């Protein structure tokens, strides 16, 4: 009755996961639901639970190993039972096959970065010494020795080419590398177009001020403009399913749920933490969810579920003093809203110059999914919603 432990797919686009550390050793008894190991995905480090009672056996992926999603990394067997010899590479689909443990229950600090050594082949002692001397990451070195071993010459060649490109730049983290890959993929493959609207944020401000005390009292969290925009955008998206769809290579896939990602700066880049079902979530829930994720993002403890399944994204650089900007779509989503700062500007008010708190919002859209008119209709509705948040019944949380 051996049960395989597989590298879980914790995100939609995840292809591999890295074993950070095993929390149980081979031969240890484990109970279903007990934390078994820590896995680092592209965006987060997460504890993976045992999926059965038994004894941990046949560990195939050591700490540091980068393993394709769905591959067996260990077995949970009955006491005395041998793990099956045959590698059962069972497909898990994209579903989350192993529930991540709630991060709040693990108060210890984030695990150290894995050495990620085991996916490499042989490395000669000379190569190791030269790599240390030249600051070369052996992960980036292609071995040319016997059996693909990395030799000293390989390291020197890598050091030389690295020296030519960037003088001893440290290797990118998983987040930074992923950001580079995803933005490149999006920018080069998704035909972006941009629509800009200047909106009066007075009503948004007023709504925020009105709801703030109640939400503070009831949820203990400070309501932000971003929270309001997430809730509003989600409710407008409900009327514009195309904007909430995805390009799936061969065609458009409609997404049933409306999960709005919020771009958050982390140490090495940016991630989009997701407020699921933002179209039906109350403002307080949105605010609490966003605040929790922001704290975890700062601590580097975002869960894969925090960043998975987004269908639309909002990026707000208003707090950085940015008036307006264009954002790169998060694949495979169809759109991202770039929000600038709210600034007092002189605008016509009832035919006269007046000073209003104005905000520029810029919608980036994937032209494979939506066209200009469809995107404009969405942005127009959103602008109207921002102009009258109360019309959407945005209340505290009921």
């Amino acid at each position: 009755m051996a049960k395989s432990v597989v590298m879980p797919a914790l995100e939609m686009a995840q292809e591999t996961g890295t074993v950070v550390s095993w929390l149980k050793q081979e031969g240890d008894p484990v109970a279903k639901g007990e934390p078994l190991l820590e896995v680092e995905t592209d965006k987060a480090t997460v504890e993976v639970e045992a999926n059965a009672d038994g004894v941990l056996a046949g560990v195939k992926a050591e700490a540091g190993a980068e393993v394709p999603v769905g591959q067996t990394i260990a077995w949970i067997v009955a006491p005395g039972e041998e793990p099956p010899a045959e590698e059962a590479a069972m497909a898990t689909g994209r579903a989350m096959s192993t529930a991540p443990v709630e991060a709040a229950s693990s108060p210890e600090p984030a695990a150290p970065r894995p050495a990620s050594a085991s996916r490499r082949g042989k490395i000669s002692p000379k190569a190791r010494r030269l790599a240390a001397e030249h600051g070369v990451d052996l992960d980036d070195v292609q071995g040319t020795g016997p059996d693909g071993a990395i030799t000293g010459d390989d390291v020197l060649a890598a050091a030389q080419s690295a020296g030519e490109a960037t003088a001893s730049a440290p290797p990118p983290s998983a987040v930074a590398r992923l950001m580079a890959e995803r933005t490149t993929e999006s920018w080069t493959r998704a035909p972006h177009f941009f629509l800009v609207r200047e909106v009066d944020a007075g009503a948004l401000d007023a709504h925020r001020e009105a709801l703030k005390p109640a939400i503070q009292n009831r949820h203990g969290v400070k309501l932000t403009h971003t929270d309001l925009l997430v809730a509003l955008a989600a409710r407008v998206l409900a009327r514009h399913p195309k904007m909430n769809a995805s390009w799936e290579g061969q065609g458009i896939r409609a997404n049933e749920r409306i999960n709005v990602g919020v771009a958050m700066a982390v140490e090495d880049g940016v991630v989009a933490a997701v407020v699921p079902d933002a179209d039906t979530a109350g403002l307080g829930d949105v605010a609490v969810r966003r605040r929790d994720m922001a704290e975890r993002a700062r601590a580097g403890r975002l869960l894969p579920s925090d960043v998975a399944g987004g269908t639309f994204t909002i990026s707000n650089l208003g707090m950085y003093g940015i008036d307006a900007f264009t954002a790169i779509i998060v694949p495979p989503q169809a759109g991202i809203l770039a929000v600038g700062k709210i600034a007092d500007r002189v605008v016509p008010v009832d035919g006269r110059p007046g000073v209003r708190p104005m905000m520029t919002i810029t919608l980036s859209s994937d032209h494979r999914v939506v066209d200009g008119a469809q995107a404009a209709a969405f942005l127009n509705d959103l602008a109207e919603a921002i102009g009258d948040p109360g019309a959407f019944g945005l209340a505290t949380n009921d």
Partner: protein
Amino acid sequence: MSMPETETVVRQLTLGDAIREALAEEMRRDSRVLILGEDIAEAGTVFKVLTGLVEEFGPDRVLDTPISEPGFTGIAVGAAMTGLRPVVDIMFGDFIGLTMDQMVNQAAKIHYMSGGKWKVPMVMRTTMGATRRSAAQHSQSLHAWFCHVPGLKVVLPSTPYDAKGLMKSAIRDENPVAFFEDKMMYKLKGPVPEEDYTIPLGAADVKREGDDITIVATSSMVQVALGAAGRLAERGIGAEVVDPRTLWPLDETTILESVRKTSRAIVMDEGYGRYGVMAEIASVIAEQAFFDLEAPVKRIGAMHVPIPFSPPLEDATVPTEETVCEAAEAMCG
């Protein structure tokens, strides 16, 4: 190779002749030098290395002994202690077991235990090397045994030139020296200049230069290594052949310099691979040049079996050029 390059035409001598010449010259130079052993006088040894010496120096200085290795080795130790410079001839290296107490507990210890008051300036000449169809008791290469004992020097020449220069140094040395001659190399010819020269004990010789892999080889394995290096060069691999010439003292500096240059090392010796000369040299390399290595140090030695009498089987126990080429190619990738 440290040959005098000014010599335009250097005469060719066999290794056996070079040793005889060294002994004869030293006997002429120093009347304290004498030789004793079995079948060495009129017979000139079974390998005919000493032919003619008894005629020149007489039976008092070229002494035929009974078959009594422990006895005449002990005589040599005593003779050395009392002022002579004896050269003991042990016909087959396989017989050194008989001499062990004299060599290990007497010759090697006396200088130390007498607080330097006594010395034992003797040489034990003996043979090594397989493929002579001499079976398991006459084919072994047991020089590692003496290497293990403090107080003994161990010399393994690989060319006629080295043999002559090293033999002279061994005779002139104030310590007991074991001198191992590969019986299959007695007919090997090489340049040997007429003039007097010596080669210091403890100086390795780079027999061939190369950049890709170091082959540390001793005695007849130097010739195998040189043959392999020629074949490897055709395959684009530059092999450097380092001959330590003396296993104690061991010229670690030259070996390490070469390995640091090439980053790869094969150590070959006709002794057994296990617990042997190769293990020692491989350890020296691993301990002092580990972080210059691209590959584990490879030992190539005799197969760990009694040397068979069957010719095809005997041949299979000895490293060949092809063995070395295969190992070198695998290591260089």
